């Protein structure tokens, strides 16, 4: 079974530029998460999707960050314009929502992340 795919792996941009990250979750996983992990800290949830709907985006800085999952499969996270403090690893994760295995919804599978450096 293929894991969560993310691209690009690395991105270097200058402040005020725009950047987009892409995530393809595990096939069949209804729930998709985007996390921001600043160096030396634990991941912080930015947004959670259930299929193509937003479940939680309370910690997403909506003035500059946006995310979509139009067809309920892959997702993109965009930052426009980027700030220096956006330098971090952006992690995508997915989980199953199968009614046959309710506990599976709490098992998140993470991609390798995109490391963003804003200069």
């Amino acid at each position: 079974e293929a894991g969560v795919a993310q691209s690009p792996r690395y991105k270097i941009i200058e402040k005020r530029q725009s950047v987009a990250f892409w995530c393809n979750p595990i096939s069949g996983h209804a729930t998709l998460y985007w996390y921001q992990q600043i160096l030396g800290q634990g991941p912080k949830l930015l947004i959670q999707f259930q299929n193509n709907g937003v479940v939680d985006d309370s910690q997403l800085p909506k003035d500059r960050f946006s995310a979509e999952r139009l067809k309920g499969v892959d997702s993109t996270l965009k930052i426009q314009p980027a700030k220096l403090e956006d330098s971090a690893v952006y992690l995508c994760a997915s989980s199953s929502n199968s009614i046959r295995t309710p506990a599976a919804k709490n098992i998140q599978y993470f991609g390798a992340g995109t490391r963003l450096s804003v200069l």
Partner: protein
Amino acid sequence: TQLLEQSPQFLSIQEGENLTVYCNSSSVFSSLQWYRQEPGEGPVLLVTVVTGGEVKKLKRLTFQFGDARKDSSLHITAAQPGDTGLYLCAAKRNQFYFGTGTSLTVIP
């Protein structure tokens, strides 16, 4: 303020030594998870503890959930270089929250 505080933040030990990592909160959780994250990779789930006082073992790793379900510990026996990584606890409220992390380095 962090919902989940981990200690220590950094730990560097010799191969063969034992260690314990702590995850503390003032909140009660229905379950708590432990993840390990290696450099350049995403976190990987190690275990989920559900019942207060529960102890789970995964080879040389022992996980315990506090009786009051507010805290947890991870004990590693005879640490090996392959145990090196960032250890994260996580819990779910209305969303998933991760702890501050413990960076472990095991020196051969």
